[in-house]
């Protein structure tokens, strides 16, 4: 019997001009945003490859110079884009995707398009994730708010129920019929997305297809939540207008209000300093030290070396004491960075966890977090790359200072290393975290989305059971 209901709902829906136009609009936006995202991601990936090659070439051909000067010359590190980033660019436009690695400093990331974009440009840059998170649920509401309420108003519900069909069969048939109509819109987009993934997949270790499958599952669960909520409201509302107004209010809270409130609340609970305050704190601590982290004392360092090597004068040391001191300075600044950046990242992590928990009030927060995570564009994966880049920077500085220490003497300002040293420094080979790592970070969002799914289905089931004919 259900297949008759599904078939009728599907036919009724796709013959409805309102559905056709809204589906064409949302479908077009989805495909355009996917295509735009893919083109942008591909372009960015090509630019990244070119920039990496250029940066490497600059490093290797910087000419002969003191290794510490080379450490100040620095190198650029570029965060590779994962294949799914074309679906959801996440925090990348805000956090940036490249960083200049140099001596004594842990620099901010560069290439932050959001920083330079006008408000209009930000709104205009509709991503596939935004279409999936906001417009598809709106379409689901528009398709299903009248599932029961409109039938009740028109009088067809009495006739339907008089046939002996049960409420549950009717609800399931309507849900599947609407899903079929939505599939007309979403399946081509999913196929296009999968094809784009296969074509654009640059990093097999980041398991793009598995990430894509989980991402599709997360969005599917999110859509079912809206479908079930819409049917529940439609089953109980006194009129289709009431159902529509209520569901639109839910949509606004879910998509616009709750995410904003969640961000503001998490910032209030786990406050983070402004960029200016943070920079000043780091600068102050770098100058004076803090608590048990004291800046290196050059005289003490020299005395220790003299004692270690059993000589009286620095000129008699077989190594360059300045190189040792510079490395000690690096170690000191690293501890200051670890202390401050560690606290900052921890605050971000706590903010993130609170936001994930607040998804209990709005499923969009859960699906957004999962979407960014699976696309490789969330804060955690930004941190993952930032830490890899910082580790690389420290290794690079250690190598430069070590070369200077080992191959020159104190006071010898003429020592210069060449291409052989620069080439011996391996390029940063960043490996994005695997799917398991991402899902491990997103257990809370998965659980909350699962709870929403179960809750919405149970609610729909209960409301349909209690629904009235007239």
């Amino acid at each position, binding site marked *: 019997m259900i297949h008759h209901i599904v078939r*009728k709902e599907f036919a*009724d829906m796709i013959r409805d001009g309102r559905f056709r136009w809204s589906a064409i609009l949302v479908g077009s936006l989805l495909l355009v945003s996917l295509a735009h995202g893919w083109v942008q991601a591909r372009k960015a990936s090509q630019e990244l490859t070119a920039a990496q090659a250029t940066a490497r070439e600059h490093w290797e051909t910087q000419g002969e110079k003191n290794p510490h000067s080379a450490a100040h010359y620095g190198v650029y590190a570029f965060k590779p884009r994962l294949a799914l980033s074309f679906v959801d660019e996440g925090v990348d436009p805000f956090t940036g995707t490249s960083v200049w690695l140099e001596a004594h400093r842990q620099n901010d990331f560069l290439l932050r398009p959001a920083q330079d974009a006008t408000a209009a440009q930000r709104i205009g840059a509709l991503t596939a994730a935004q279409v999936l998170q906001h417009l598809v649920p709106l379409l689901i509401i528009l398709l299903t708010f009248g599932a029961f309420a409109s039938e009740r108003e*028109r*009088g*067809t519900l*009495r006739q339907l129920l008089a046939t*002996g*069909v049960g409420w549950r069969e009717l609800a399931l048939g309507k849900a599947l019929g609407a899903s079929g109509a939505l599939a007309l819109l979403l399946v081509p987009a999913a196929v296009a997305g999968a094809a784009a993934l296969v074509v654009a997949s640059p990093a097999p270790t980041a398991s793009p297809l598995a990430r894509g499958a989980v991402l599709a599952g997360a969005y599917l669960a999110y859509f079912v939540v809206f479908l079930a909520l819409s049917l529940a409201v439609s089953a109980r509302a006194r009129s289709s207008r009431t159902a529509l107004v209520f569901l639109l209010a839910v949509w606004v809270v879910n998509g616009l209000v709750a995410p904003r409130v969640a961000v503001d609340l998490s910032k209030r609970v786990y406050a983070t300093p402004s960029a200016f305050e943070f920079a000043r704190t780091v600068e102050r601590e770098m100058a004076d030290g803090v608590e048990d982290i004291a800046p290196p004392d050059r005289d003490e360092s020299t005395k220790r070396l003299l004692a270690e090597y059993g000589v009286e004068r620095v000129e008699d040391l077989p190594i360059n004491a300045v190189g040792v001191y510079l490395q000690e300075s690096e170690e000191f600044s690293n501890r200051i960075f670890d202390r401050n950046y560690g606290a900052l990242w921890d605050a971000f992590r706590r903010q993130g966890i609170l936001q994930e928990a607040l998804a209990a009030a709005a499923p969009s927060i859960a699906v957004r977090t999962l979407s960014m995570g699976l696309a490789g564009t969330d804060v955690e994966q930004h941190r993952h790359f930032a830490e890899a880049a910082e580790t690389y920077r420290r290794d690079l500085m250690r190598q430069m200072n070590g070369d200077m220490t080992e191959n020159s003497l104190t006071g010898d300002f003429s020592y210069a290393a060449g291409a052989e040293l620069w080439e011996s420094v391996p390029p940063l080979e960043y490996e994005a975290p695997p799917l398991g790592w991402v899902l491990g970070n997103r257990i809370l969002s998965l659980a909350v989305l699962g709870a929403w799914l179960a809750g919405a289905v149970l609610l729909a089931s209960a409301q349909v059971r209690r629904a009235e*004919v007239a």
Partner: protein
Amino acid sequence: MTESQESHTGAAPLLEARGLTKDYGGTRALDSLDLAIAPGEVYCLLGPNGAGKTTTINLFLGFVAPSAGQALVAGLNVSTHDRESKRRLAYIPEQVMLYRNLSGIENLEYFAALGGQGSLGRERLVEILVEAGLDGDAAGRRVSTYSKGMRQKVGIAIAIAKEADALLLDEPTSGLDPTASSEFSALVERLRNRGVAVLMATHDLFRAKDTGTRVGIMHYGRLVTELSTAEVGHADLERIYLEHVSDNGGPR
């Protein structure tokens, strides 16, 4: 059938009310209705608005639960055998509402399938629609182009397709022109001859006398009198009706 009593014709009734009562808040919409309609009977419920006619039909359809008493369809208590009792019933409301984006054939196919008839072939569906009085050419058109009379005919076709034992009609000829009303009566007559028990709520005394085998007059939720249409003329029926509905009894 074991739960049922015999109707006045001697056959086991297909539609039966036993002390059927419905209260909405403090208002009694239906008061201890006792009724038994046998196969091949057309029972017309007459009465002004608020007399309890539609409440009676809603109780037989299981759309509302009785406050007391029982509604039985083919001996099955509607409250405890909701689906089985509905399978034995067909229902045509005052205004048959259909899906505008579907054709007459598609609407009939849908309702018939939900009514347990499975997938009837297109030919059979057209045949039923034509039997119900719909023009064969119109059957394939979208219902959005149909008049009220055409929609009512699709409603009748739905009832025919269901091959139900009992038919509930709620003001089915309201708003139909005289020709369409006559056609409708002829169809009810055909169903009656097939042994279908019909309960028709109506304001139309002429149609009740013409179509019904028995008439019950309701007022303020009570069945105040019952007549055999064979024993009264049109004028008598009107007089008796007015006598009963213009009294001073009020809602309890």
